[in-house]
């Protein structure tokens, strides 16, 4: 308990007055003659006792009256909450409003964010003028104290849902740090939250605890705007087999689905966006839901023309949280990349050609077309001899591979180097024919990763350790299952003095470099230290390796597809992102532009320029959910790409933490939980000035006064009968 005006408590000393009057200035009785004293005498003792009792009762009442007055005027306040701070100090208040997409959950015709905003506005209106207020949300932008309350009100009104919210603890930390700077003020942080389990995970609670411990003056009020009974249908992340399709390759979409608190079987529809911005429904299905509330919808669409295609999958029914009912996707259909395979003889290119574009898939070879899902060919490969190399127009090809090259003419090397520096990809598969003398000098050295040292005869095997490089990334799902030991490498080239811009992508088991990447101008040169052109039993010598052994050489196919895909820069890159992620779109040499227009889902378009020589578009303004388009050069331009931005998966995780255990986990003396605006106001009152007892006390005083008056009247001025 505390007092707002404790000095007035001194007034209680005035109870000395009635006591003194009682003791010193006893009321003198009127002296009267009265003969009939014998009747008085009989009950004199009882009367005297009663008289004394009444005197004492009146004295007690009067003392209580004075003490009560002093007590009431001192304005006692109940501080049962223990949230005591600097009394009378100005206020520094941070209002943290969770504006993540999850807060778009609608309950009683109000989203949680609207509810939070409304309560925050209600709270603002209660704050005394001169209060410093900061509005903090979960967007990345830094906040500060606003100029006045009306500015705070307008900031609250203009809060928009944040698709890529920062962790709650970061916002709380910022809010606490803001108010902590106001050393002389009462420091209060109001956090409007739905107590979501994802947001309030253990690390968040620990971080908030830590922050609070470092700011003991700060009081944190959690205002719960969440809903206990959750009803939601949500679509999980779309699973596409390929983001980049070849002509004729079908699109297969799998959509996981989760239903919480609803019983109906959801209807899921697939829409494709046409060129006129009109969406066309291309499929729908009712999904069966397991007792756990899970289900999956599968769509398959074929016959996409070349280009970028965008669409979305949507739940037909509405539910309280609408934001996770739609998932967007973008796929690209590209023509097969043209790859030039150069060998001394045509058979040198056989393995690689078969790996890249199997003859079984070539209609011209097979004489018939294959089913659509098997007919996709990633590469068109052409085999040529080294001798003819100088005559070819390398620029027509996306990549050029040299298979077991002998020392070549300077002219060809120069052509290759020029080709690479203009953005082409050159693959070098070194083998028996290479000679250190012919390779370590002249123009060839521009493409090679370093000086050729010697042919190693030490048996080993290709053992890529980390598959995070784009040239190997596609193997990652199978990393554990590829038995690299089964494909021994008997010979390989060792290097001396790797050039500074060389990166070792993968090594052999003996830790010697196996796959080396060197940037050349805008292009790249990828060197594999062993040959892939040897037949299993070459004449007069051992094969360089068994990677191409025909009986079990399956890893060779994806490995080569990855290598060449990387070189041809036609590798499939992700086109679906979560909100807030930075999108990277790699531009093949032919599509390189200096500026482009970004069309956002909300219809706005932004013109952006690309630094000269940059081959990647990076877009970080991906807060809006939906399909984005990137184009350049007008309607007939060179660049037409796109990507999709979806809601993060955890938005659909609506389970709440148990408020009691949460409060227990936070420091009790600093944190309070409120469910309604009244609770907030009460805490504000209690925390700020305590629960005022004046109304009750003054009523009590009035009662005592009335009783005293009544008794005094009755004792001293009874009516004459």
């Amino acid at each position, binding site marked *: 308990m505390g007092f707002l005006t404790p000095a007035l408590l001194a007034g209680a000393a005035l109870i000395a007055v009635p006591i003194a009057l009682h003791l010193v200035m006893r*009321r*003198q*009785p*009127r*002296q*009267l*003659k*009265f*003969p*009939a*004293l*014998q*009747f*008085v*005498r*009989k*009950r*004199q003792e009882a*009367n*005297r006792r*009663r*008289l004394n009792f*009444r005197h004492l009762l009146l004295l007690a009442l009067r003392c209580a009256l004075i003490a009560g007055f002093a007590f009431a005027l001192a304005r006692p306040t109940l501080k049962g909450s223990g949230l005591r701070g600097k009394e009378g100090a100005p206020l520094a208040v941070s209002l943290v409003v969770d504006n993540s997409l999850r807060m778009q959950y609608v309950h009683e015709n109000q989203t949680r964010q609207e509810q939070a905003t409304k309560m925050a506005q209600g709270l603002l209106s209660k704050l005394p003028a001169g209060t410093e207020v900061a509005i903090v949300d979960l967007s990345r932008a830094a906040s500060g104290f606003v100029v006045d309350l009306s500015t705070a009100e307008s900031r609250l009104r203009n809060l928009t849902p944040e698709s890529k919210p920062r962790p709650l603890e970061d916002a709380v930390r910022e809010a606490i740090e803001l108010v902590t700077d106001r050393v002389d003020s009462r420091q209060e942080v109001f956090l409007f939250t739905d107590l979501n389990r994802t947001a309030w995970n253990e690390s968040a609670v620990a971080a908030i605890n830590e922050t609070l411990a470092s700011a003991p003056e700060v009081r944190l009020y959690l205002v719960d705007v969440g809903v206990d009974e959750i009803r939601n249908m949500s679509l999980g992340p779309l699973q596409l087999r390929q983001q980049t399709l070849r002509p004729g390759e079908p699109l297969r979409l799998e959509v996981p689905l989760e239903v919480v608190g609803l019983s109906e079987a959801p209807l899921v529809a697939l829409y494709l966006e046409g060129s006129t911005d009109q969406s066309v429904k291309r499929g729908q299905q009712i999904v069966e839901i397991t007792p756990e509330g899970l289900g999956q919808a599968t769509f398959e669409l074929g016959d996409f023309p070349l280009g970028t295609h965008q669409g979305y999958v949507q739940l037909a029914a509405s539910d309280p949280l609408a934001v996770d009912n739609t998932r967007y996707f973008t796929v690209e259909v590209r023509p097969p990349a043209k790859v030039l395979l150069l060998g001394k003889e045509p058979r040198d290119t056989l393995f690689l050609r078969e790996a890249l574009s199997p003859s079984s898939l070539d209609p011209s070879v097979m004489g018939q077309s294959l089913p659509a899902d098997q007919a996709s060919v990633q590469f068109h490969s052409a085999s040529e001899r080294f001798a003819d190399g100088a005559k070819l127009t390398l620029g027509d090809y996306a990549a050029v591979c040299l298979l077991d090259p002998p020392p070549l003419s300077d002219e060809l090397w120069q052509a290759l180097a020029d080709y690479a520096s203009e953005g082409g990809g050159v693959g070098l598969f070194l083998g028996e024919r290479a000679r250190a003398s012919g390779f370590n000098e002249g123009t060839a050295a521009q493409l090679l990763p370093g000086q050729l040292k010697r042919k190693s005869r030490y048996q080993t095997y290709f053992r890529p350790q980390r598959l995070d490089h784009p040239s190997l990334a596609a193997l990652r799902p199978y990393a554990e299952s590829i038995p690299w030991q089964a494909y021994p490498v008997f010979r390989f080239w060792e290097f001396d003095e790797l050039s500074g811009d060389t990166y070792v992508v993968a090594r052999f088991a003996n830790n010697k470099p196996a796959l080396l990447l060197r940037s050349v101008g805008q292009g790249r040169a990828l060197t594999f230290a062993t040959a892939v052109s040897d037949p299993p039993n070459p004449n007069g010598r051992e094969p360089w390796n068994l990677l191409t052994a025909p009986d079990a050489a399956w890893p060779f196919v994806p490995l080569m597809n990855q290598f060449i895909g990387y070189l041809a820069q036609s590798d499939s890159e992700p086109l679906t992102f979560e909100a807030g992620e930075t999108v990277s779109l790699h531009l093949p040499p032919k599509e390189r532009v200096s500026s482009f227009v970004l069309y956002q889902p909300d219809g706005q378009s932004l013109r952006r320029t690309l630094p000269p020589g940059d081959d990647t578009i990076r877009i970080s303004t991906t807060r809006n959910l939906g399909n984005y388009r990137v184009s350049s050069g007008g309607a007939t331009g060179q660049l037409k790409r796109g990507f999709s931005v979806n809601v993060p998966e955890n938005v659909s995780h609506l389970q709440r933490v148990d408020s009691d255990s949460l409060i227990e986990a936070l420091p009790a003396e600093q944190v309070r939980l409120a469910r309604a605006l009244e609770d907030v106001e009460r805490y504000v009152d209690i925390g700020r000035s305590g629960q005022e007892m004046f109304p009750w006390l003054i009523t009590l005083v009035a009662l005592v006064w009335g009783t005293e008056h009544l008794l005094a009247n*009755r*004792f*001293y*001025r*009874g009516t*004459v*009968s």
Partner: protein
Amino acid sequence: MTAVEKYLKPEVIRQISRLDLRAQFIVKGFLQGLHASPLQGFSVEFSEHRKYAPGDNPDDIDWLVYAKTDKYYIKKFEAETNLTGYLVMDLSASMAYSYEQELTKFEYSICLAAALCYLMIHQNDPVGLITFGEKIADCLAPKSKRAQIGNILSLLAKLEPREKTNIGNSLNQLAAMLKHSSLVMLFSDLLAEPEEVIASLRRLRHGGHDVILFHVLDQAEVSFPFEGLVELEDPETSETIEVDADAYRSEYLEEIDQFRTLYVRECRQSGIDYVPLDTSMQFDRALTEYLINRRNWG
């Protein structure tokens, strides 16, 4: 102003002159048998004639009238006794008490006594005066002369009630003193132990005297009108008691009521006329009322 004028005002005389004071028991004895009356000097005073009606006692026919008028008339008589009355006045200091009233109890009693004295003299009955404090103080022999009123009242006017009182003892003394059956009119506030007083009243009554007890209290003693804290002092003993009057009023009234009820009951049992009075009552009206009632009883 003489004592008579002071205490016996013409309007009072007008009020009571049409009344009489009869001794209930003595008259009864007279009516029961004239021939056997143990007392001397009784006379029958003619009152009026009225026509004889069948059923009247033929002895009452006035034959002289019959002789003159040849009609039967009956002679009506008015009984008259030689009733000896004693006005017995309490001289205790408490009788001098008055709280916001014009008359003290003593003065009130004198007024009453004067009226009764007048009445008796008017009936030619002898009236005497006896005053007492702790014992009988003054005694004026009964006489029926008109001058007796002046004598009695001038004596009373000279007296000052300032003595301590012993009513029982004084009444016993009085009972021993009175030789013949008399009418004893006692004026007192009876502020003494009631047992003693009642015992001596019984004794007086037992002596064949007709007793009228005028219990005169001050209005304040009846209603206890005090407020707040008061210190009460007994004028006789100077004893003081401090009381909260407001709180005590109801208890006091209960006590005084019990006290009066005790006398009412005892007096009725003993055949004594108990007349409770307080000084706020108009004494002449109270007296008139009493006398009318008494005649009706008779």
